């Protein structure tokens, strides 16, 4: 991340200078910083709402129940997490929210899942295998119905916007499964974070 951060900023300045857009680049620092705070503050309300709802789900045992149902899958994907960890339930909830296109709910619940995984993490500043797996699943953006895209298509008078659903689903599934497989492979070859438990064969997936 250090290199990427450095690279993004230095490249922007150099290319901006070459293109004669240096003043735009400098102005974008201010507008970008402003936008970040706007994004964070606009999250507060919806974050509070979903963390509240999730607390109820957690206390009623719904999250643990969900974690139990998904045990056969989660055992393979998140093999370093304690199997009764509420993180599994949170991961499942966040994934469902994403899949249903409820982006507002997915982020708070996803963050909650990260917090649960952080509890089981041995090095608090470095991502654990489970976190990388969860991020791989989340960044792949699996979604059953792309609601925003369809809304725009309807807006421009697209005759049959639902014809986009099937191909999108195929593509998102391919990306999603690839992300899981790549994360599994990297988990074996990337320098381990700490001493990991001996893993059962992850190639089964």
């Amino acid at each position, binding site marked *: *991340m250090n290199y*990427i951060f450095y690279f993004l900023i230095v*490249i*922007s*300045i150099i290319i*901006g200078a070459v*293109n004669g857009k240096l003043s735009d*680049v400098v102005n*974008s*620092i201010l507008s*970008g910083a402003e936008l*970040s*705070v706007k*994004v*964070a503050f606009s*999250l*507060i309300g919806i*974050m509070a709402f979903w963390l*509240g*709802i999730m*607390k*109820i*789900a957690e206390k*009623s045992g*719904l999250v643990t129940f969900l974690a139990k149902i998904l045990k056969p899958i989660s055992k393979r994907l998140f093999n370093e997490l304690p199997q009764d960890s509420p993180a599994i339930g949170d991961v499942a909830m966040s994934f469902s929210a*994403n899949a249903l*296109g*409820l982006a507002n709910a997915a982020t*708070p619940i996803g963050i909650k899942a*990260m917090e649960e*995984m*952080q509890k089981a993490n041995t090095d*608090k*500043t*470095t*991502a654990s295998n489970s*976190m*990388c797996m969860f*991020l*791989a699943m989340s*960044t792949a953006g699996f*979604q059953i119905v792309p609601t925003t*895209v369809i809304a725009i*298509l309807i807006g*421009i*008078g*697209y*005759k049959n*916007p*639902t014809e986009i659903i099937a*191909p999108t689903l195929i*593509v*998102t599934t*391919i*990306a999603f499964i690839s*992300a899981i497989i*790549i994360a599994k492979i*990297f*988990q074996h070859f*990337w320098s381990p974070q700490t001493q990991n438990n001996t893993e059962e064969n992850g190639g089964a997936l």
Partner: protein
Amino acid sequence: MSFQTVMNTISLWTLPVIIILILTVGLIKKVPVYEAFTQGAKDGFKVSVNIIPYLVAIIVAISMLKASGAIEMAGAVLAPVLNYFHIPIDTIPIMIVRSLSGSAALGIFSDIAHTLGPDAYATKLAAIMLGSSETTFYVLAVYFGAVGITKLRYALVVGILADIIGIVAAVSVCHWLFA
């Protein structure tokens, strides 16, 4: 009832059904739902404020990159390659921006859709690309930022590889169905 009405009804009802389900199970299990809710909601502010430094880092860096014209330059470099594969050049900005900025990608898509119209192949391809992926950099910054993790190990590489696979898949599927 058309397929579209069914879809609309489903998307309208998912959220309310989930909320009712969680509240009802809570009540049945004798959870003090109001107290539990407020207890959980208390963290909303803290979490949102915690992610600000990570958001500033990633959003400022990407805003600078966008302002520098680097994305247009990358597009110009990619254009001959995409031409060779019969991929419409109009979709290049979406491919590059999709992982970096969700709102920018949506803006570009609106633009393509409005200028090229509903029947254009590029509109369909762009729609599939946009609908099938996530803003990788934003998700990474927010999720890892919320728990204070700075060493991402392979998380970013996986995210980007999956995005590239997604683009290739979108081009192939779109070609197969609509070309």
